[in-house]
Every structure is written in C-alpha cells, then in structure tokens.
C-alpha cells in the first residue's frame, strides 16, 4: 500500500505541489458535481427520495440480523451458496478456498470496494494467483500497482498521458498515445481476451434484497456482466449493510445512485441476479470486518447507510485538492474519513481532520448521512482516546486560555497586530506554517473592540 504511513496533511502538501495539476483535479471533480446537480434538479421529488432512502436504511440497520437471515434463506432457495466472513482475512480465505476447490487459475474482477478494503489482490498475489481488474479505471491503477483514488472513478488522479505511458510500459503499445477513445479500445481488446478465458468472476454488490434473495450489480462498462456470464463461477462480495428489505425499494435507490454519482439517470447496466445459470456456481460472501462495531456506535452507525455514490468526494473542497491517495484508505473522501477510524483508530486518526466541516457532503448525500457532523464527533473521540497530535493539544489549550480570558485575548491581539506591523518578517517566513501557500492578511488599524468603543455613540 502506498502512502500507508504518510498523514493526510503531508500527503496533501505533496499533492498540491503541482499547481496546474491540482487545479485540473479540482475542476474535473467539480464538473462531476455539476453534472449531478443538473440531473438532480430535473427530479422534483428528489428530497422525498432522499428521505425515503434514509428511512429505509435506518429501518434496515435496526432489523439487520433478521434481514440477513431472510436474505440467506431466500438466496439458498435460489441456489446461491452463502458464506459469512468475520473479517478481511476470512473473506480472502473463503475466496482462495473456492479457487482451490475448483482448481481454477483465470480470474476476473469487477469493481468492488470491499475487496479493496480486504486487500484481496495482494492476498491472491501472495498465493501466486493472478486476478485481473476489469473496470477500466481499476485496471489502469492495477497495472500501475496503485490503488483506486476514488470509489467511482478509480483513475481520476491520472491524466491521459499517464494512461498512455502505463499502457506503453505494460502492454508494449506505441509510446505517446493520449486519445481516450484509442486507449479505451486497447483496453477493450486486451480485457476481452481475459473475459473469454476467465473461469471465475468476482463482483461487488450494490444492493442485496432480503425479500427475494437476489442482488443487484451496477456498471456502465458492462464488465461485471461480461465476467460473470462467461465464467463458470461467480463470487459476489458484500458488506452486510448492503441489505435492503424489499425488491421495490430498488426503485428509490436506483433513482438516487447514478444521479448522485455521475449525473446519469441510471447506470448503463443494473443487473439483478437471483439464480445461477445452468451449470454455474454462484456464491455470495457476507462480510462484517468491523461493521458490527460501527453499528454499536450511536454517533457513527448511520455511516453504514452509505451506497457508495461518491457524491461527497466530488463536492469536498479538501478531497478535490488533496486527491484520493492522501486518505490512505480503500474508501477516501468524507465518507471514508468517518468509516476508516472505526477499522483502525490509530492509523486513521488524521482523516477526520481532513475536512473544513463545510457540510457540503451531508447536503449531497443521497441517504442523508450527517457526514460533517460525524467528522466533528470523531475528532472529539480521537482527542479523548489520545490519538491527537501533541501540537494540536497544546494549540487547543493555548487557544482555550486566550479565548476564555478577555484581558489576555486583548493583550495577545494587540501584540499580534504590533508584530505584524513592525516586524512583518518575523511572521511572513517559512517557519510559520500558516504562511505556507498563503499571504498574511493586512493588519487592521485597530481591533473591533476598539472601533466599537469609539463608535458606539
């Protein structure tokens, strides 16, 4: 894993060194956010849909064990084999077992953030098993030995020149290709061979329906369907929170998902799997991996309502200017920042601070997760649990002293203004972190209090 131990702020500092590229990243994602707005504004009942989606998910979480049992029963009746995995390790070993039992070696995978979370690719590699990611963006980052930087647009951190170079180095294509159409065509040809020879196909799950024992997988490229309908074995991996009670609830979620994600009215393919085809094995792995802990935290449990649309990424001023890899977690962005500390509080203690708390994430969330409030609440938890940096603690204590004692506040303000006026170089230098990438503000003639006392009559 790259960037595993680089904190978000440091990784972000590195990311923004290339200013034109940072601007491009920022604008590209904002463009996706604007497409979302255009699509959303065409649906007068949008807010009603969000409210229903939120309530259906609230209900599902409050009855989750029963719905999982109902799902399992119906799925088994449909001929699907159901597995349960307590953690990432068990998830990976279930897959390895199926691979070994069937003696297969050719494996394709469509996009699944859960398998990223479980580091399935690395695990299979260690076991000398080749697995090919077939979503174009995921395949590109796989060739580069990187991880996705965005859950919907995995290669959004790359420019077309980078993709051309990656193909040149890994596939021996001509150097200097930059036409997205040509590059996509190369991928289509190459991956078609992989699809045709695949013996086993792995997919994620967008929604699992308790009432019918089926599940839905959404893609635009058609890669999930190409994989599973050609291979003799289909393994679908789902976090247990993907459960929805009824078939007709899909109407609400499918109306919200693609519009929130990319501004499309629906993804090109929304495939409903209920039974394996004749001669095919269909497996589903239901994974916990820390989710039941999150369910126990009243302040954070509703992060489990997430449908992985990434609207919160695209709207986030911090994500857009720091890139997905700065978050050193399978799911980046605002939602990743409230999910990650649950999995490992120490390693991810920096993430809830990677936010301005502007609240835009919560406003675009199709299932109404209070993301920015949870970010703020995580900060309280992390500081209390001793995961805050000492510089932050000392800083807060100092500010606490200043802001609770008016006399000290006035004195410090006066000193500050004097120093900035008389000795600007003592502030405007590289030793002052606030001066990095910023101009210091102009010094006011007097404080507000002084102005007010003079003018109140």
């Amino acid at each position: 894993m790259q960037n595993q131990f680089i904190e978000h702020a440091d990784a972000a500092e590195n990311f923004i060194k290339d200013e034109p590229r940072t601007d491009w990243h920022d604008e590209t994602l904002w463009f996706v956010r604007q497409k979302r707005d255009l699509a959303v504004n065409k649906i007068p009942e949008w807010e009603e849909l969000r409210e229903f989606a939120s309530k259906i998910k609230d209900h599902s979480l409050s009855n989750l064990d029963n719905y999982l049992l109902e799902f399992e029963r119906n799925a088994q009746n449909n001929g699907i084999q159901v597995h349960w995995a307590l953690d990432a390790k068990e998830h990976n070993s279930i897959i390895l077992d199926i691979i070994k039992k069937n003696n297969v070696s050719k494996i394709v995978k469509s996009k699944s953030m859960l398998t990223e979370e479980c580091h399935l690719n690395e695990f299979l590699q260690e076991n000398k098993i080749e697995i090919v990611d077939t979503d174009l963006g995921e395949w590109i980052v796989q060739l580069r030995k990187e991880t996705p930087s965005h859950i919907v647009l995995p290669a959004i951190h790359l420019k077309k020149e980078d993709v051309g170079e990656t193909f040149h180095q890994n596939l021996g294509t001509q150097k200097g290709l930059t036409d997205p159409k040509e590059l996509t065509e190369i991928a289509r040809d190459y991956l078609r061979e992989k699809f045709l020879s695949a013996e086993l196909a792995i997919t994620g799950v967008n929604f699992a329906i308790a009432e019918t024992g089926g599940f839905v997988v959404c893609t635009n490229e058609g890669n999930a369907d190409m994989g599973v309908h050609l291979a003799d074995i289909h393994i679908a991996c789902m976090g247990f929170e993907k459960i929805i009670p009824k078939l007709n609830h899909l109407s609400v979620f499918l109306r919200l998902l693609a519009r929130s994600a990319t501004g499309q009215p629906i993804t090109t393919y929304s495939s409903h799997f209920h039974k394996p085809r004749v001669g095919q094995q269909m497996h589903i792995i239901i994974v916990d991996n820390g989710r039941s802990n999150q369910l126990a935290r009243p302040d954070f449990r509703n992060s489990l309502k997430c449908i992985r649309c990434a609207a919160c990424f695209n709207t986030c001023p911090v994500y857009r200017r720091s890139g997905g890899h700065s978050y050193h977690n399978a799911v980046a962005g605002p939602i990743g920042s409230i999910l990650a500390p649950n999995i490992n509080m120490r390693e991810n203690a920096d993430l809830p601070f990677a936010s301005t708390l502007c609240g835009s994430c919560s406003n675009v969330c199709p299932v109404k997760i209070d993301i920015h409030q949870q970010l703020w609440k995580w900060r309280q938890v992390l500081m209390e649990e001793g995961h805050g940096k000492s510089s932050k603690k000392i800083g807060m204590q100092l500010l606490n002293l200043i802001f609770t004692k008016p006399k000290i506040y006035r004195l410090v303000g006066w000193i500050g203004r004097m120093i900035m006026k008389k000795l600007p170089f003592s502030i405007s230098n590289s030793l002052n972190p606030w001066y990095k990438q910023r101009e210091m503000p102009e010094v006011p003639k007097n404080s507000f209090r002084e102005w007010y006392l003079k003018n109140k009559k």
Partner: protein
Amino acid sequence: MNSREKILNAIGQNKPSLVALPEVKIAYAENINLTSRFSEILTGIGGNTIIVKNYLEIKSNIQEKFGTYHRIVNQVDEVEIKNEDSLELKKPYQLEDIDLAIIKGRFGVAENGSVWVEDSDISHRVLPFICQHLIIIINEENIVSNMHDAYRFLETTSFKNLQNSSFGVFIAGPSKTADIEQSLVIGAHGARSLIVYIIKNKF
C-alpha cells in the same frame, strides 16, 4: 460459535431499536408523453430509438442499417431475419464474434431510458453484453413512467410471487466509460451501440 453466528449475534446486540419501515409513496402528477420522454432520455445517454408500425418495418430497417453484417443473432421470431444456427448448443464464449444481437425487451422506463431484459428471452445471459451492437424491441404500451412503476410492473410479471426471474437487467444505452480524464467513450466492454425499436400500436 462460527462466523455466521458471531456476526448475527454482534448485530443483534449492537443494532439500534427498531425503526419503522416507511411505505414508499412518491406523488408524481407529471403529464408527459412517455414515448417521447423515453426517446429523449435514451438519446441523451448515447442510445437511439426508432418508432415503427410493425415487425416488417423493423426487418427492413435493420437490413438497411446492418445489411453488411453477417454474424447476426436474432431472438425475436417475429422479425424474420436469419439467425445463427444452433445457438443454444454454444458455450457463452463462442458468442464472442457476434456483430449484432436482436432481442426482446419487456418494458421501457421513460425517466431513464432503460429497458428491462429478462434472461428467459435470451438464449445466453451474456448475449446483450458480448455482441458488438444491440437491438432491443419493445411495445409502446409497455413504457412506464419511472422506476416505481417499473418495479410494480416487475412485481406482477417477472417477480410474480417472487419466484420467476433468475436474471434480469435494466439496460440504458450502449456500454460506456469515462475513466480516462472524464472523457466519455462509447463502447467500453459491452455493446458499442443500442437501438430500441418501439412498436407503436395506435397511429
């Protein structure tokens, strides 16, 4: 205790107290022409619609457009276009070189330009994905307004008594990707083009 029991126990202990399940009721009174909305949306996402009187018109239109294609799989008997022989005996990967597939759609959805395709209408599940070009035929009377109507339709047809459908898919336009710099490219892994023929009953 195995993992299944551990997970279910943990959820049982940690879940919040029961919250009521809302009944989804979306009020919509939009008075629109479903066929033109469907066409407009599908065209906007890279597909095409052609409104026809009957299957004969579909046949001549396809011959005009795809006359030079020789690998055609036609799964709609009413369209009298020659079919690849003994398709049923083939393994899915043997469909790899198909230029054009002609299949039936059960219904269309006006709000998003999608068509529901059911696997009992196609000889292989992979067919609408692996073909280079795809044609789906629907009846105009089977265009519903939105996804709520779509699932009501499914609950009384493919999912009647929650039994029948083993695989079904909403297909909305040709396969596409924007994974390279957000540039839209049509024809990612699935069909490069989609035409939906809408058979109009009343003229």
